[in-house]
């Protein structure tokens, strides 16, 4: 997939900064996030829990909980309009209409006291000004589009009467009700059974192709990234540490953290136990965001740490067409990628 040039971008995020006030001081939850999204593209954002991927989504939606959160700087430009400067009313008209979002927890994301039909229709009535009756008819169609059987009966049911997979389909129907340009899917299948996960992803792909809609897919699962996305952002401790087209990233990861994430994907094999590779892991945990020093946030867990890593934080460096990484190794030596991958495995081999 070719890298989108700035003029054709549907959404552009520039130097986004989000701070949270915590008991231990200010946490820079997002620090200098930059990316762009083109029409019809599927962009993956991958990283561990707490790396800021969901917060990026909430910031685009204008739903950062304030306080304790605060957008400290940057721009989010949608079709030439800076959403961070938009009025509350204007944002409300964009949310659920032009930019929609689905969440991780389908079991609790629907309101238990309203029927499924009413919850879908609400957004249609709100943004398209249809009558409730017409909106309910449209809701039936939407349920059919997300492959829910017997939609006429389902719209009168309540969320507790549906399975997790069904509820996530309902969430997708709500999100797509107004034909948005952008769908943000925040770990949409994490809470679902594996078999249902595949169905939901197939559905998302199908709907995306029908509508030429852009998707921002947030996940911690490299396997999902490989299957679904065109371009990938790897996030760590509130920053984008690597960005590349998916094939490029998987074959030629530049940042030690990215190589680690890829190595962590378990391989299914039928070999006898002794011959299987040990399951990889990245040692250590993500440091608390209030305790980041001046150096690279990944330094304490990195197998390649150098003196410079503790002293200052690396900035993203272009390492190829549409491929950038923020690591001192990029500046230090031009092409050591292959060696590094080898060395990274050694990390994972620890008992």
């Amino acid at each position, binding site marked *: 997939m070719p890298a989108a040039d700035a003029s054709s971008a549907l959404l552009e995020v520039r130097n986004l900064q989000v701070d949270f006030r915590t008991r231990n001081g200010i946490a820079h939850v997002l620090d200098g996030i930059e990316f762009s999204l083109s029409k019809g593209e599927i962009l993956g954002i991958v990283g561990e829990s707490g790396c800021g991927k969901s917060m990026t989504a909430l910031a685009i*939606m204008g*739903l950062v909980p304030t306080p304790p959160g605060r957008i400290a700087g940057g721009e989010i430009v949608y079709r030439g309009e800076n959403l961070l400067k938009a009025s*509350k009313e204007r944002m*409300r*008209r*964009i*949310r*659920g*209409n032009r930019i*929609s*979002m689905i*969440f991780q*927890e389908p079991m*609790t*994301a*629907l*309101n*238990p*006291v*309203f*029927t499924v039909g009413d919850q879908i229709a*609400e*957004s249609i009535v*709100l*943004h398209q000004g249809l009558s409730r009756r017409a909106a309910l008819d449209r809701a039936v169609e939407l349920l059919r589009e997300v492959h829910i059987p017997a939609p006429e009966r389902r719209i009168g049911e*309540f969320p*507790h009467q549906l399975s997790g997979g069904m509820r996530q389909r309902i*969430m997708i129907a*709500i*999100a797509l009700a107004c034909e948005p340009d952008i769908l943000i899917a925040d770990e949409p299948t994490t809470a679902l059974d594996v078999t249902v996960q595949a169905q939901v992803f197939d559905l998302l792909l199908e709907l995306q192709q029908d509508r030429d809609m852009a998707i921002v897919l947030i996940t911690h699962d490299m396997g999902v990234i490989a299957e679904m996305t065109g371009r990938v952002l790897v996030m760590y401790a509130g920053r984008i540490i690597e960005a590349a087209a998916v094939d490029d990233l998987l074959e030629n990861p530049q940042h030690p953290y990215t190589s680690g994430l890829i190595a962590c994907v378990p391989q299914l094999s039928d070999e006898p136990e002794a011959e299987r590779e040990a399951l990889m892991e990245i040692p250590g945990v993500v440091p608390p965001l209030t305790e980041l020093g001046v150096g690279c946030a990944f330094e304490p867990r990195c197998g390649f740490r150098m003196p410079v890593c503790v002293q200052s934080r690396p900035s993203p460096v272009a390492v190829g067409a549409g491929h950038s990484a923020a690591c001192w190794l990029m500046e230090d030596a031009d092409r050591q990628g292959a060696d590094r991958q080898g060395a990274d495995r050694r990390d994972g081999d620890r008992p």
Partner: protein
Amino acid sequence: MPILRLVLERIAYAFIVITAVLVLNFILVRLAPGDPAEVIAGESGGITEEILAAIRRDYGLDLPLHEQLWIYLGNAVQGDLGYSFYFNSPVVELVVSRMGPTILLILAATVIALFIGTALGVLASRNPEGLFSNFLTVASLIGYSAPAFWTGLMLIILFAFVVPLFPVAGLYDVTLSVGYFGRALDIAHHLVLPAFTLAIIYIAQYSRLARASMLEVLGSDYIRTARAKGVAERVVFFKHALRNAILPIITITGLHFGNLLSGAVLVEAVFNWPGLGTLAFDSLLRRDYTTILALLFFSALMVIVANLATDFCYRLADPRIKGKRG
């Protein structure tokens, strides 16, 4: 029909509970010290052993307890809960004639507590760290620490001597009540102080419950979903959140009904409200067994009916309950 089955089931339960209440109350009152024959004799003047024996015989007090119970239950089935020694009237008539004012008082207090309590709590939840919210926390602490009879007395002092806005005793004033409408208005006027006195504890409790419940609901995933849909904040608050936050308040209101009834005894005594409470107060002082038993029976009946009503309200408000046995 699940609803029909449910109703039948509940009536069967109610029947068992009522029987148990009758037996239990009968035993409890008989266990209390004091000889009712002496009380009756005391009312009528001089006491001799012959008179006491005659009274015991007349009222069946000389029979063994289990036989007294059996007679009591048999009569109860026929709608006869006995004859009051003190009031000289069949107790069922006595209780029924006093039920109206008490039900009026309790319903008024419930409505006041529900509306004011919920409204205060919801307002506080809009800004949980704000001045109003903190004020409410302190005020409600005072509200539910203050005993009803004390609150009642304070209100009487305030409204009888300081600002005489509301009448402080009775159900209505014969000299002021003119015609049907005039009487209703006068009763409403008399109702204000006792109803508020009874309601204050519940206003305090419901406001805290509503605040906590709203805050919990506002943090839930489906509220985030509503916001992500582009629903206006006001609608998120009053439609998506309030509709869910009200559920625990309905449950608690049902559970409070019994407490309200016992609270009414004190409040009616303070405001001389001619309801079951003053009747209970008087008959307790007189050791008027039959009346006490009938009152306990009727209050159990009212609590059962109230619980049944709560159950159905809850079913209307929360679709998840349907089909399940609650």
